[in-house]
């Protein structure tokens, strides 16, 4: 083992990162669990009461019923027992408990149905937004003496101040209702067969267009501004003067040198954004009634469905942590300086 470590010092670094990863996730899980248990709200009581109100009946033996549900939801015994039970269920069976919003469907089933929609919508829009942001941001930095740059910068600053729901609202209002260009609700037309057929796919793309556009518009300004300031902070660096002295084409200097050096933090940013996407665009998903995790989450919040909320929060924590673990593991490959630092 020690011999192996001496031969490949990078293994030690990897081990360290993976260890930290598990410890952090475990910690986050524990904190989330106790936080939800300590919030003074009794969702089951509320639920039974609302059922009673809804059907204007008094459920016989309401207390007995509440107790039965409590058992199902893992709310019996001491807090410690509940915690151990929750962990055991989660780790051994991958079970996050039943949901309220679609009782008795288990939380994990709800999430599994929603995840593909969220991932499809968000990964595509995040990548588009990131690439555009890098391109526009570095152009703005490179031509910082020209008015194009001022225009890009000011528009981006303006856009970054507009709340995301306003942007979504405008898109729905104009492109959806006023001009009727694109559908504004759901993820596909119910009339088509779900599967790999052209009509369905076309419908999915049409339905995702507006929410994707909204997400791009919301996040683009951030990428533009951060790329711009990263590249500008590089301008005047000796290696750019040198690249210019070599008579390289301006485009090549911008991409091969200025942007290449700004790339590292932006690649990290991309990975982390990807990781946080499962909880990322709650508002936009619910505005477009998009059947992703964000929508599930907002329904869960509305009636304090803590099992579902915890499930989604844990998933977000795990995916953010996984993304940052991947970044950490890849960094030595991307940045030669880190590789050397590890060796030393």
């Amino acid at each position, binding site marked *: 083992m020690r011999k192996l470590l001496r031969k490949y010092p990078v293994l030690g670094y990897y081990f360290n990162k993976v260890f930290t990863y598990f410890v952090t996730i475990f910690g986050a899980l524990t904190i989330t669990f106790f936080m939800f248990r300590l919030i003074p709200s009794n969702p089951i009581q509320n639920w039974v009461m609302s059922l009673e109100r809804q059907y204007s009946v008094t459920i016989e033996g309401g207390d007995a019923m509440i107790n039965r549900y409590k058992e199902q939801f893992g709310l019996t015994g001491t807090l410690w027992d509940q915690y151990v039970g929750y962990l055991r269920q989660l780790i051994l069976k991958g079970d996050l408990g039943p949901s309220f919003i679609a009782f008795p469907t288990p939380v994990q089933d709800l999430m599994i149905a929603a995840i593909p929609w969220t991932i499809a919508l968000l990964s595509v829009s995040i990548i588009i937004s990131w690439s555009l942001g890098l391109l526009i941001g570095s152009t703005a930095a490179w031509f910082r003496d020209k008015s194009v740059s001022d225009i890009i910068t000011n528009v981006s600053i303006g856009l970054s101040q507009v709340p995301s729901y306003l942007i979504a609202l405008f898109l729905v209002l104009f492109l959806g209702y006023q001009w009727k260009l694109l559908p504004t609700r759901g993820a596909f037309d119910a009339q088509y067969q779900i599967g790999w057929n052209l009509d369905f796919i076309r419908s999915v793309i049409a339905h995702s267009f507006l929410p994707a556009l909204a997400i791009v518009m919301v996040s683009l300004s951030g990428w533009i501004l951060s790329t711009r300031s990263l590249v500008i902070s590089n301008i005047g660096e*000796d290696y750019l003067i040198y690249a*210019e*002295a*070599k*008579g*390289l084409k301006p485009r090549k200097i911008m991409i091969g040198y200025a942007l*290449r050096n700004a790339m590292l933090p932006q690649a990290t940013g991309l990975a982390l954004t990807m990781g946080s996407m499962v909880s990322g665009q709650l508002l936009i998903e619910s505005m477009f009634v998009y059947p992703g995790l964000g929508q599930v989450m907002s329904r869960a919040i509305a009636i304090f469905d803590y099992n579902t909320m915890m499930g989604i929060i844990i998933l977000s924590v795990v995916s953010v942590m996984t993304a940052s673990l991947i970044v950490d593991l890849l960094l030595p490959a991307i940045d030669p300086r880190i590789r*050397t630092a590890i060796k030393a």
Partner: protein
Amino acid sequence: MNSQAITQPNAQMLLDIKDLRIWYRTTRGNAQAVDGVDLVINRNEIFGLAGESGCGKTTLARGVLGMTKLPGYVESGEAIYYHPVSDSSVVGRDLLTLPAREMRQMRWRHIAYVPQGAMNVLSPVLRIEKQILDAIYEHSDLSKEEARARMFECMEMVGLDRTVARMYPHELSGGMKQRVTIAAAISLKPGLIIADEPTTALDVNVQQVILQELKDIAASLGVTLIYVTHDMAVHAEMADRLGIMYSGLIVEVASVVEAFKEPLHPYSQGLIASIPMIGGDRSRMVGIPGNAPSPLAWPSGCRFHPRCPKVMEICRDKVPPMLEVAPGRFVACHLYPTPMSGAAPASEELN
């Protein structure tokens, strides 16, 4: 091309800078960093450009490369570069009015630059080979193998091992980085290399070795070298001819032997007198009294007059013209109104 029309005054001339002014716009007015430089660089010489910090050396060097950056701008002047297009004909082109694209093609191919602060000129995230090869590809039609062969050839000339090509800058010592920049500069066999204080960050021993290498390479490749530094001891070792710059102007040009033996301008005399000599008499180490003037407002008349130990009445009002006081010896100082005969009046006490 209008540049064709410029005829070369003499075959030895490589670069002819005429009344060059490069100013920086600042909130407090124009900083006239380079303000009336006249200078001729000859083929195959090592020209040393000396002068204290802030006198405009870097501004001048970058100006000649067409790399003046805002808030700097070329106020006026010419910098005509003569380069052979065939065995018999030479083209002179004003570097300051060349279209950006043509200027870009001149760089590295004809005029290479080793910038000040060589520690940071290499991009930290790219391999050395990439940073040498991209310039070769940019300016030549060499194939991949030929370009690499050229690169290794140049690396060998500066004593770099082939393995360095695959390394990153942070894996190299300061001296090795400096060698990389020299290898890169000679990779296209340019006519002129401008080296701006390339060795100031290195320790003295490494500096010695690299200077000698640079000198040998310049001689063997037939490259002209403009070597910029405030370090007079380096000039004594390197240069064939020396130009002394003061307050945005060249005040004296002479062969390095003459300049050291018998400096004419009182500023040059001060500079040379302040070189620390090993084992020399320490009391002789006199600096130049006073501070360098601000480029925002140069003193009237001769810009050196407020600090000059030999200041005369005329110096306060009248700008001394640059005169050839002896063959190949130029000085802008009222002490030398006419071509000299014999010893300089001002240098007696230095001998």
